[in-house]
């Protein structure tokens, strides 16, 4: 009965969705805001990667909101899973091979994450992606060593400092420019590591923040396993 109702519902939803997209052109050139961004990004922001320029510069306020949502999720997760008994992670016995390999891989994963968010304005990648890569490295260490503890004070200090950097740099735009998150630093030569004004600074801050938050989330979730 439940399955029949669900399938009828799905048929109705699917029919209308397909109908909408049947008339939507696929793979054709588009006019509008995307075209404007592609043609003017290099002159206006100096960032080679247009997606980064949109995320950090044109829609920077949106990204600030997104970072806030992520912070709220991490805080809410901690609040939901909060337990008065000081819990340790369950004893996990990873084999020697796993431990040695993750010892060697961990610095490289962190380095790759840092590379991805430092070069966010030049290559595919950025703060969110780099932060996630760093969190996967931390997860690998959590899985291999039961004694590997996250220092929650340090994590929240990193998180707060990164958030403060984002807001301070954004407020600087109000002082030296015309609007919040205005790109007031020199744009430099497009393609250089130090170019595109405030974009790399903000994206590095976002990278630190996302890495710290996701590591905290992983630690909180792993501590609930009994």
């Amino acid at each position, binding site marked *: 009965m439940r399955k029949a109702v669900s399938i009828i519902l799905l048929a109705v939803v699917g029919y209308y969705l397909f109908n909408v*997209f049947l008339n*939507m052109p696929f793979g054709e050139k588009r006019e509008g805001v995307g075209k404007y961004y592609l043609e003017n990004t290099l002159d206006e922001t100096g960032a080679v990667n247009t*997606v980064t320029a949109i995320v950090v510069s044109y829609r920077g306020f949106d990204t600030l909101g*997104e970072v806030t*949502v992520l912070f709220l999720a991490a805080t809410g997760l901690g609040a939901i899973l909060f337990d008065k008994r000081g819990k340790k992670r369950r004893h996990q016995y990873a084999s020697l091979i796993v431990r040695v390999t993750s010892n060697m891989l961990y610095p490289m994963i962190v380095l790759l994450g840092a590379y991805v968010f430092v070069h966010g304005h030049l290559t595919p990648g950025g703060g969110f992606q780099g932060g*996630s890569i760093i969190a996967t490295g931390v997860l690998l260490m959590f899985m291999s060593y039961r004694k590997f503890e996250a220092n929650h004070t340090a994590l929240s200090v990193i998180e707060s400092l990164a958030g403060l950097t984002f807001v301070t740099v954004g407020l600087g735009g109000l002082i030296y420019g015309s609007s919040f998150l205005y790109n007031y630093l020199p744009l430099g030569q497009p*393609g250089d590591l130090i170019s595109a004004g405030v974009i790399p600074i903000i994206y590095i801050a976002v990278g630190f923040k996302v890495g710290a938050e996701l590591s905290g989330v992983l630690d909180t979730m792993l501590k609930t396993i009994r």
Partner: protein
Amino acid sequence: MLYYIGAISLILIGIYTVLTKKNLIKIVIGLSIMDSGINLLFISIGYVKNATAPIFSNASLTADKMVDPVPQALVLTAIVIGLATTAVALALVIRLYDHHKTLNINKIRQLKW
């Protein structure tokens, strides 16, 4: 066109999973599948034939040979929010399991439909 069909199929599979499965973890997986479907749909709307990624990594690339960057920026946001919601949903599942000692929504009286 195939991308639209695939993306909409993913969304429908996600809705079906959420509606019919009884295990809470499977419902969260269904939400996640729906999320991926929506992201794929957005990216395929921005696709342009024979175009490259919107990154001016060398001088020979011009703006008229690039895909639309706006859906990509939106999906970047959507992926992060999807991750956050999945984490919170899993945390709620853990709490429900602690309370009721089961993941079956039929046995948790308040969640029956």
